[in-house]
């Protein structure tokens, strides 16, 4: 399981559309060899087909696809967008924090989601993620290393 490791985090990324933002989160997972490139395409396709329902909360999106689309290991990446992007969600737009989920069919899938919920369930953490300057500060918030 890989959860917001240093290579999976990028701050103040430029993206002009939901698709670009989704591709940036997917790229981090792909470059760390945690997902196949087909998975990144599937993340974009899911958005095009099912809409922005994965904008889970104000400011927060969690694009993902299915395990069979090409996930090697349960994982979560994170990008903070330089400028917020509108995903077309009625109540939670615009989005600045994007978490790319590599959904696996293993027990680790549940574990990474629980970690993500632990992080985002506390509104104070969301405020901090909007302010952090580097990966060390993110580690401090998630209490990991």
């Amino acid at each position, binding site marked *: 399981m890989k959860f917001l490791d240093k290579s999976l985090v990028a701050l103040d990324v430029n993206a002009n559309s939901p698709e670009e933002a989704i591709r940036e989160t997917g790229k981090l997972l792909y470059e760390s060899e945690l997902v196949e490139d087909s998975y990144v395409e599937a993340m974009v396709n899911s958005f095009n087909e099912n809409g922005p329902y994965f904008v*889970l909360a104000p400011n927060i999106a969690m694009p993902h696809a299915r395990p069979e689309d090409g996930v090697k290991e349960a994982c979560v990446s994170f990008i903070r967008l330089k400028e917020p992007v509108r995903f077309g969600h*009625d*109540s939670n737009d615009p989005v600045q924090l994007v978490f790319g989920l590599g*959904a696996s069919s293993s027990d680790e899938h549940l574990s990474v*989601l629980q970690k993500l919920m632990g992080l985002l*369930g506390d509104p104070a953490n969301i405020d901090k993620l909007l302010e952090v300057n580097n990966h060390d500060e993110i580690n401090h918030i998630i209490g990991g290393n």
Partner: protein
Amino acid sequence: MMKILCVCGLGQGTSLILRMNVETVLREMGIDAEVENTDVSSAAAESPDYIITSNELSQSLEGHSSKIVIVNNYFDTEEIKTALEANMN
């Protein structure tokens, strides 16, 4: 037992997060229910007592026999609790 289905587009990540938070809220409310998660097309073929989903996806479930409960912020357990209470009374 009461059956609740949490629904998202793929039935993989989003609905599982919703399900875990719904289970937490139900425990707090002292309600015993069977909670599952699935994708929106599978949900059409099921008939739980309640379907919990986002406003957007609820539109593709229009006319479904289950009572539809809408949640916008999946991390806000207070919102989930209020939505459940409003629909269960």
